[in-house]
């Protein structure tokens, strides 16, 4: 089962290039050091960048000035988490149990959520120079222990909310870092392309949340494309369920096959596209198609999926070309354009994107 990154020590005198190198270590023997370096970068990067003039541009350079909120005294990229406990009721926000910088307590759900919010901010800030969900340093609020045996986690437009699960099918929803990343990414989508939560646009909204949810975990654990599980919600099912996770980006339709829950119904390409009434038009089903397209891009390019593949998807999401009712073909077009703009029209990145969409049966808008 996948856990969350552990607490870290601050290493404020280590030079940034060394931190970046440490942060990219993938050898499991150095997982602790790598995580500490990433957390240190997340905390101190904005100041460090100012302190080392004349250095070559860092891959972790700060965001454009206009993207940063003018909140007095706040350092861009710094994180401001507040965790609340709903105590089993369905009332938000609940009682505040941990604020930014306070040490962990004894409740694992609080610790998991707190660390998961940090890992998500870390990915978006260091890799895409996005300062929190809104790009302007929005404080990150979350509530745990929502409802009684509540089988869900969601982003309500303002905060993340986690249930404890029923204990029969689902464990607590903070157990999976991909779930935390998934929910926060819904917030990012809301503040960027604002995709409708219905039909193909809704499936894209879901898929983008799965893609970046998976990248949050891969980045936190230093997993390359080849090493990553590409699963969403690993560890959420109890031992009674025959299944490893809620979804698989690598192989949609294979995450579970259980007597009670049935078989993972996600299609892996357009031939299996589902016209559904439920679930806002099958948004959690058809997301399997763009999910697999992203995996195929990552697989073709190799290395770390949060680098070129993640950048292309992020550029497409934030580039301004997507309408809120975008369909798969529109999104395919946006990613191809983003890949060509950043890496070149004849680049391997652009070709990987084009091939991936055709493999899952989606033809970009401009070529249909």
């Amino acid at each position, binding site marked *: 089962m996948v856990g969350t990154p552990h607490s870290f020590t601050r290493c404020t005198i280590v030079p940034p290039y060394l931190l970046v190198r440490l942060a990219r270590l993938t050898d499991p023997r150095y997982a602790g050091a790598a995580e500490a370096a990433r957390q240190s970068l997340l905390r101190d990067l904005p100041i460090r960048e100012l302190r080392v003039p004349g250095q070559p541009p860092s891959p972790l350079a700060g965001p454009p000035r206009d993207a940063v909120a003018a909140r007095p005294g706040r350092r861009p990229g710094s994180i401001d988490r507040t965790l609340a406990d709903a105590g089993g009721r369905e009332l938000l926000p609940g009682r505040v149990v941990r604020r930014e910088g306070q040490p962990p307590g004894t409740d694992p759900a609080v610790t998991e959520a707190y660390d998961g919010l940090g890992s998500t901010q870390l990915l978006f800030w260091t890799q895409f120079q996005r300062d929190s969900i809104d790009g302007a340093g929005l404080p990150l609020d979350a509530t745990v222990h929502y409802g009684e045996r509540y089988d*869900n986690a969601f982003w309500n437009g303002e905060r993340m909310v986690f249930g404890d699960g029923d204990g*029969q099918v689902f464990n607590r929803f903070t157990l999976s870092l991909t779930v935390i990343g*998934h929910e926060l990414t819904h917030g990012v989508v809301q503040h960027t392309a604002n995709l409708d939560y219905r039909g193909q646009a809704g499936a894209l909204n879901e898929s983008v949340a799965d893609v970046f949810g998976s990248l949050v975990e891969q980045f936190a654990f230093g997993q390359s494309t080849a090493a990553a599980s590409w699963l969403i919600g690993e560890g959420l099912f109890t031992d009674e369920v025959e299944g490893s996770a809620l*979804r698989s980006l690598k192989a949609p339709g294979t995450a579970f096959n259980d007597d009670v*829950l*049935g078989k993972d119904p996600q299609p892996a390409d357009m031939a299996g596209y589902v016209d559904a*009434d*439920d679930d*806002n038009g099958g948004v959690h089903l058809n997301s399997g198609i763009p999910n697999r397209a992203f995996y195929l891009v990552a697989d073709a390019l190799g290395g770390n999926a949060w680098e070129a593949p993640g950048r292309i998807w992020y550029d497409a999401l934030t580039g301004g070309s997507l309408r809120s009712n975008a369909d798969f073909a529109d999104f395919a077009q946006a990613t191809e354009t983003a890949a060509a703009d950043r890496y070149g029209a004849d680049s391997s990145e652009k070709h990987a994107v084009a091939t991936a969409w055709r493999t899952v049966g989606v033809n970009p808008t401009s070529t249909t």
Partner: protein
Amino acid sequence: MKVIVSRSGGIAGIRRTWEVLVDDQPDFSDWLALIETLPWGEVPRTAPQPDRFVYRIRCDARTAELAEPDLTGPWRELVERVQQTEPTRSPDESR
């Protein structure tokens, strides 16, 4: 008369269905009274929120679809009653 509640969506996207044959219930008249108080024709149409549940409630020819935040009052009472009456997890491979 049957009451069928199906819940789709949620981050898991796994549909669950619960079904109760009202005629077989010892408190049959309570069920009927509750069902008659439901405002079938006035279901709110809230914009869907990511990963919230969507409830579809069917009773004879009547159907209502409610977003999770709108599942309040007698709607919620009915859904909880159906879930408690038929507490077993039901297989659901249909879409």
